[in-house]
Each structure stands twice: as C-alpha cells, then as structure tokens.
C-alpha cells in the first residue's frame, strides 16, 4: 500500500519524487490564487504561480526522453516571446478580449494534446496490455478534446465580439436550442461509443462537432453578456486541463483544473447574481436583441438639464464629498487618467473623493478596478457596492462617468424592466448628480431609459468622457 520506497505503480517507472514535484506545483498554484485575496500579497502570489509552472515544466522535461529537446526549446521560445510581447503591449482597456484570446489557445492546446495522446498512447502510459487504449482514458480524452474544442471556438467568437471585430448583436438561428442540444447529445453519445471502439473517425467527429457547437453556443449571445461567457469558457478550459490530468495521473494538472474550473464558475455566478439574471438565461442568449427593441419603445420626451464643464467644476469645488461611479464609458473613452487628475485637484481643495464600483461595471469583472489602478488611484479609495451604497445619502455629488445601468433606479422599482432586481447605486439620494455620457440618445447595454437623467438634481454633461473631464480639469485650474 505504501510504496514510497518502492517503485511507482505504473510501468513507466515513475519515481515518487516526480509525484512530489507535481504536488508542490499544485500547491504553488493554490497559493497563487490565495495571494489575490489582497493587493499587498497578490504579487507574491503571482511569483508562486510562476514557480509552480517552472517546477511542472522542468519535472516533465527531466523525466521523459528528450528526443527532441531543441524543437521543444524553440517552441517554448517562440510562444514565450509572443506572449511576452503581447503582455507588454496590450492596453488595459483591451483586457477582456485578451483574456478571451488566451482562453482560445488553452482550448486548442487541450485538443492537440488529446489528439497526440490518442496517436501516441504509449508515451502517455495509457495502453492496456492488450495494446488498446484504456477505455477510461478514452473517456477522458474524448471529454478533454470536446471541452477543449468548445473552449477554442467559443473563445474565438467571444474575442471577435469583445474586440469589436464582429457585431456584438446576438445572431439568432431558428431552432437553435434544438440544434445545440442535438449536437451536445451527439458528442456525448460518440464519447460513450469511443469507450468501446477506438476508431479514429469517432474522435475526429467529436472534435469537429465540438468546434461547431462552441461556435453555435456563443453567436446568439449579445456582446454585453460576453464577460459571463468568457468566465464560463475560463471554467471550461480548467475542466479540460483536469481531464488531461486524469489521463496523465498528474496532480498539478488536476489541481489546476479544479482551481480554474471553480474560478470561472464562481465569476460567472457572481456576475449573474449582480445582474439578477440566471446563468441559463445568459447562456440561452438573445438578451441584447430583445432589450434594445424594448428600450427603443420606452424612450419618451421629458425635461432634463444640461450643464457645462465650467458649471460642473464650480460645483465640485463647493462640495464636501464626491463619489465617482465609473462604468463602461470610462473605459471606452480611456478617461481614467484625466479622472484621477480631477480627483487630485479636488482633494487639494479639501473635497473628499471616493470611487464606487459595481460588480458588473465595465465589460469584465474587476475591469474598473484595473483601469483605476492603472491611473494610480490608490485601491483604498475604491469601494464596492455594498460598502459605499449607504454613503450616497450624505454625499454632495454623485459623479457618474460612463456608467448607466448600474445607477438605474428602475432596477429597484420597475418590475417590468429587464434589469429589475439588479442591485444598483442609490444615486437618487445624493444632493447633486453629474452624469457624463455622449448623447441623450445612447443607452446602457440593457437598452433601457434611465430616470436619473430627468431628476431635478441631475446635470447631464454630454460629451466624450475623457474630453469632458479634461475640460473640468481646465476649469478647476483656472
């Protein structure tokens, strides 16, 4: 039972130190995520992650034939340089699409590894004495390849929609639910069959169908639901890694798979909860389409007040406390740096400035936080919804910049609104509300009108967010 001093249980002669090394790598990955529980420990966490990866890679290299070490090093080198350059160059506002693009690579890598294992089962020690591939391994390979392929094609679509290279509007095929369910059933059925018959056409068909279903599943989902989809695909890429980990009996892969799988699932859950929508309704797709139609009908002519940058600057100076609510529009306009300058100005005048972040502000979880951090806003001035919402009643100015749905009071009162039940900021309790957006016509992603525009205490500041804030800064300087 205890074979620490004996040889490993599989024929490849794995020795216990190898298992230990992979376990250490797995633990380091756990510590990498654990570090993210606070900004001060997060960088150490990232180093743990790197160390874990190094251990996993080196262990694998030293315990296998190195028939092709040069090729491998070249491959790592190519990939590494590409990855590194992308990471240095990418703009922070483009993070959502970068994450989606990276997922597609993990997915495709999983498909390729699965195929390689199928073609060279001996290398993976999954051959039975009879010369056939172990049926359980076939199950794992089939699942791993299918999940990987779905992750790949789904992430490609998500990337295209987030990067604006494909319209964000949902594309709705007729009978799509039927087609999707049918394809999924076919994949599962074929995977079962594959356990009894290892013919190449079966695994090939699984691969093709999975690529197709990944595509079909994501095109009907609107652009603004993409963050949920990206998290879901993140989760999938984890499960694909875990499936390969089962095949290889590799602790590091299994642990990582479970971590990443949970992470994506929990992020999706958090976002759905913050939008008060069910995961199923997001995945069923079509949200953006119906909503913008509804939004169009709801618009009416009501009086509202427009202000200028000078007005805003004057009143901000008079205020004692200002709460800034950034949203997707701030990211689009890249207004975060100008905003930080404005806050610095105001702080010099003795105004207290805080930032209020909604869990789904922007286009990915934590999106606003990263942008503010990029603009050197200290993270202890940035607050979450539940921590700051009670402060609006005491605040002089609620400064809304590029946010919309997350301040819409219809979520609290109007049962027929598509965002009903979503937790929102109580900006209507603030003494003054400044609302930066480009035009009265434009709406938030949910496509509904916003009563905040028409409140007595609201001043609409219609312009590009960056331009408007820069003008305010000039007025403050003067």
């Amino acid at each position, binding site marked *: 039972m205890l074979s620490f001093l004996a040889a490993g*249980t599989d024929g490849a002669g794995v020795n216990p130190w190898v*298992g230990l090394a992979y376990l250490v790598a*797995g633990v380091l*990955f756990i510590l*990498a*995520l654990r570090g*993210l*529980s606070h*900004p001060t420990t*997060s*960088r150490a966490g*990232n180093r743990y*992650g790197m160390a*874990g990866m190094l251990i996993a*890679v080196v262990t694998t290299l030293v315990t*296998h*034939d*190195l*028939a*092709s070490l040069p090729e*491998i090093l070249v491959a*790592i080198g*190519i*990939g590494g*340089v*590409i*990855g*590194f350059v992308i*990471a*240095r160059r*990418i703009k922070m506002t483009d993070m959502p699409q970068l994450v989606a693009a*990276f997922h597609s*690579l*993990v997915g495709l*890598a999983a498909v*390729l*590894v699965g195929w*390689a294992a199928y*073609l*060279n089962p*001996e*290398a993976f020690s999954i051959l039975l004495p009879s010369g056939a591939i172990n049926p359980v391994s076939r199950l794992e390979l089939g699942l791993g390849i299918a999940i990987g392929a779905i992750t790949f094609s789904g992430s490609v679509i998500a990337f295209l929609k987030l990067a604006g290279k494909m319209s964000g509007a949902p594309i709705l095929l007729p009978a799509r639910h039927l087609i999707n369910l049918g394809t999924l059933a076919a994949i599962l059925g074929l995977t079962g069959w594959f356990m009894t018959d290892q013919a190449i056409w079966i695994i090939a068909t699984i691969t093709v169908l999975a690529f197709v279903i990944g595509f079909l599943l994501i095109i009907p989902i609107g652009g603004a639901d993409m963050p949920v989809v*990206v998290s879901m695909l993140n989760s999938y*890429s984890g499960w694909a*890694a875990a499936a390969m980990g089962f095949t*290889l009996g590799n602790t590091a*892969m*299994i642990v990582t*798979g*479970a*971590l990443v*799988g949970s*992470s994506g699932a929990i*992020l999706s859950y*958090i976002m759905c909860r913050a939008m008060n929508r069910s995961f199923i309704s997001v995945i069923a797709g079509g949200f953006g389409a119906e909503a913008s139609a509804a939004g169009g009908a709801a618009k009416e002519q009501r009086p509202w007040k427009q202000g200028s940058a000078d007005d805003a600057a004057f009143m901000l100076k008079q205020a004692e406390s200002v709460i800034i609510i950034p949203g997707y529009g701030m990211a689009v306009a890249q207004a975060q740096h100008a905003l930080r300058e404005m806050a610095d100005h105001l702080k010099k005048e003795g105004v207290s400035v805080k930032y209020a*972040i909604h869990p789904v502000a922007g286009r990915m979880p*934590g999106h606003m936080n990263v942008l503010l951090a990029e603009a050197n806003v*200290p*993270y202890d001035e940035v607050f*979450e919804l539940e921590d700051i919402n009670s402060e609006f009643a005491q605040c002089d100015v609620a400064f809304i910049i590029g946010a919309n749905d997350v301040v819409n009071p219809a979520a609290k009162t109007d049962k027929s609104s598509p965002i009903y039940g979503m937790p929102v900021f109580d900006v209507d309790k603030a003494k003054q509300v400044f609302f930066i957006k480009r035009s009265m016509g434009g709406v938030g992603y949910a496509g509904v009108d916003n009563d905040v525009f028409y409140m007595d205490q609201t001043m609409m500041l219609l312009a590009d967010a960056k331009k408007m804030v820069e003008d305010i800064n000039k007025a403050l300087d003067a």
Partner: protein
Amino acid sequence: MDFIAILSIFVLACFVGYYVVWSVTPALHTPLMSVTNAISSVIIVGALVASAEAGSATAKWLGLAAVVMASVNIFGGFAVTERMLAMYKKKEKK
C-alpha cells in the same frame, strides 16, 4: 496512482478552488482571470510529453504546436498579471 486516488485529489481540489476563489477580493477579479489563464496552461505538461517521447511523428508535431500555444499563454498570462498587479497601490501616507 489509481483512479480513486486521482478522483480524491480532484474532489478535494474542487473544494480548495471553491474557497480560495471566493476569498479573492473583487478588485482583483481581472488579474484572477489572467492568472487562471496562465496556470491552466499547465496543460503544457501533456504537450511536452507528446513532443518529447518518440513514437509518432504526428503526435510530436501536434505536441510542439500545443507547446507554442501554451507558452504564449504562460508567458503572456503571468506577465500581464504582473503588470496589472504592479499598478495596485495604497494611498501614500503624507
């Protein structure tokens, strides 16, 4: 390792994942996504096995392609996470 051992490790790792992810502060959810991106490329282990072992030339080239992709992810994922995390700063004491 037998299947039950692997399954046990997987089940326990899911519990760990559940708790460790819930303890991540919402402000770091974007870095969480990019770092999970990087670590899920541990699938490179499989790619290395495929490309290192003799046996099937096709498998080797598939493996090498997977090594490239996983490396993009590993280097890109960790580097972009590092870049983001370096930006999170506390208020300076005056």
